[in-house]
């Protein structure tokens, strides 16, 4: 029995009833006023009042055959009949008007509210896993189109956030599965072989240790990403140049371990940001660069500003990564995903460039002004050497 309740509770029903009542009241008032004045004036100003003379159309007519009293009675009867007829027809007309206005009101309210019904249908169809549907309202520019537009924008944002999260999860699970697979396969294969030597077990132990460390680092990164969300609000003035200069000193020993020199070429680049997260982003880029850089080469960290944007670049002379991989789920890896998240949390972007022969330059662009132009393309600054980044 919910159906009639829903029907009565609908705005369409209330609007059409309200509309009908207004039409009914106005119609009733007009007819009532007409009746009242007609009634009053016919009674107050009769045609026959004192003598045997009555005036019809301005012409005096002498009444000879009937007396004045009788003539007045006849006139009163005629007047009363006219008034009664008027009242009867008025009531019928009002009832018809009421019913008609109810129907018209129902149709008009339905037309005006159709976008709302469409929006409800779309909202109902949207599943948590598919936010790609839009209302796509194409009516005149009015309250409804603004509501539909706002709703679509909200869906757009939700869709984006949902995709980013899914991508992040895909990257994370992919990156955690790989070391797990390495550990598991090594142990499985050795465990199945009764002739496996102690040296082989020792080697497997080393592999397990390294991969367990890799997984622990990933979990640290995950926690860092979670922390980033919490602290995203606390933006302060940061000079990227100071940050990377410090970091180059801190990370120097680690670079030296793999036989790579770390150079910082920092030009002032002041932005509003979260220093902790920015350092994490640069550290992840440097980590990747150190892994890619061949022994004996150098990794460059540069900062600077260009056209309303501040940039941090980490460049290496490794094999060079596919720039498109940064935007593909499963290929970017957790570390790079976090860098991207951090750049985007600062209103910026992460761009990858590959040398025509070798070398990779990863650039984080962060706006320094409220309304910067488009993100500059290409590798910023003169701070790269052809020897390191061939053909960039």
């Amino acid at each position: 029995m919910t159906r009639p309740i829903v029907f009565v509770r609908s705005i369409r029903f209330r609007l059409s009833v309200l509309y009908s009542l207004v039409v009914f009241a106005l119609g009733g008032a007009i007819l009532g006023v007409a009746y009242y004045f007609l009634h009053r004036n016919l009674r107050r100003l009769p045609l026959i009042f004192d003598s045997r003379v009555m005036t019809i159309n301005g012409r005096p007519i002498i009444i000879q055959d009937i007396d004045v009293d009788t003539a007045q009675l006849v006139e009163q009867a005629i007047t009363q009949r006219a008034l009664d007829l008027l009242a009867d027809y008025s009531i019928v007309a009002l009832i018809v008007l009421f019913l008609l206005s109810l129907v018209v009101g129902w149709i008009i309210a339905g037309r005006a509210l159709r976008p709302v019904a469409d929006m409800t249908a779309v909202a109902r169809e949207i599943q948590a896993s598919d936010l790609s549907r839009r209302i796509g309202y194409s009516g005149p520019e009015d309250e409804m189109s603004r509501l539909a537009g706002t709703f679509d924008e909200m869906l757009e944002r939700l869709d984006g956030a949902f995709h980013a999260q899914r991508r992040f999860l895909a990257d994370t699970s992919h990156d955690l599965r790989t070391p797990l697979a390495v550990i598991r396969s090594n142990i499985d294969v050795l465990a199945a072989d009764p002739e496996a030597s102690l040296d082989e077990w020792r080697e497997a132990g080393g592999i397990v240790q390294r991969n367990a460390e890799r997984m622990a680092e990933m979990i640290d990164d995950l926690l860092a990403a979670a922390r980033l969300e919490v602290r995203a609000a606390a933006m302060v003035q940061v000079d990227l140049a100071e940050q990377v200069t410090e970091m180059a000193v801190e990370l120097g020993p680690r670079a030296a371990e793999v036989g790579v020199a770390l150079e910082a070429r920092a030009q002032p680049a002041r932005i509003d940001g979260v220093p902790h997260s920015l350092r994490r982003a640069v550290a992840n880029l440097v980590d990747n660069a150190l892994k890619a850089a061949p022994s004996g080469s150098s990794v460059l960290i540069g900062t600077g500003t260009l056209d309303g944007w501040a940039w941090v670049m980490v460049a290496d002379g490794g094999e060079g990564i596919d720039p498109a991989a940064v935007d593909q789920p499963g290929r970017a890896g957790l570390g790079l995903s976090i860098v991207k998240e951090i750049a985007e949390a600062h209103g910026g972007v992460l761009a990858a460039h590959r040398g025509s022969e070798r070398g990779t330059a990863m650039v984080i662009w962060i706006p320094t002004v409220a309304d910067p132009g488009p993100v500059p393309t290409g590798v910023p600054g003169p701070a790269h050497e052809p020897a390191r980044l061939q053909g960039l």
Partner: protein
Amino acid sequence: MRLLIVEDEAELASALARGLRREGHAVDTAATASAAELKLVSAGYDLVLLDWNLPDGSGVEICRAVNTGDLAVFGEKPRVLMLTARDDVDDRVLGLDAGADDYLVKPFAFVELAARVRALLRREDGGTPVLTVGTLRLDPARFEATQDQNPLDLTAKEFSLLHYFMAHPGVVLSQERLLEHVWDEMADPFTNVVRVTVSNLRKKLADPSVIETVPGRGYRLVVV
């Protein structure tokens, strides 16, 4: 049977290669898409274990290229087992539609991988888990071979050689073909390793005449 493992995690590739060699397969590895393509055009493989994300390309693309013939593989098209950390249903469908014969999500139990490898190679043997030719019986899963119900004491290489003979009964198999499918890329094509192994296998058989030499052509498992 000869297998190619395409996997960029060196520590994973070497563990799998070791395990599958113990199962009696000839195993090569490739760490990049370009290395894999090079190996596929220069040697005949029965099965390729293919990782999805490679540093210089995608395993799915290799799989597609093998199936459409865009990559002119050596010999017959190998079967493909996708080995990846991507576990989305969409990804599995994409991999299988690209022509993969099977799909295994990392991390997996090695015994499952070995069983799937056997299952895929079995399709080539004619679909039976245990091969029987005359009085010879070979069970790849248990690594057991018998003749007249007497167990044969074979080395891994002799076992795979017998397996290959039994998968192609009555067919004359050249030394080159045996080298191609039973040995991996480390085998020197100019050695007499095939001749020596065939002769060792014959010695262990109760009835050596089941493997006959076809002069100038190769060897054949006689079907009684």
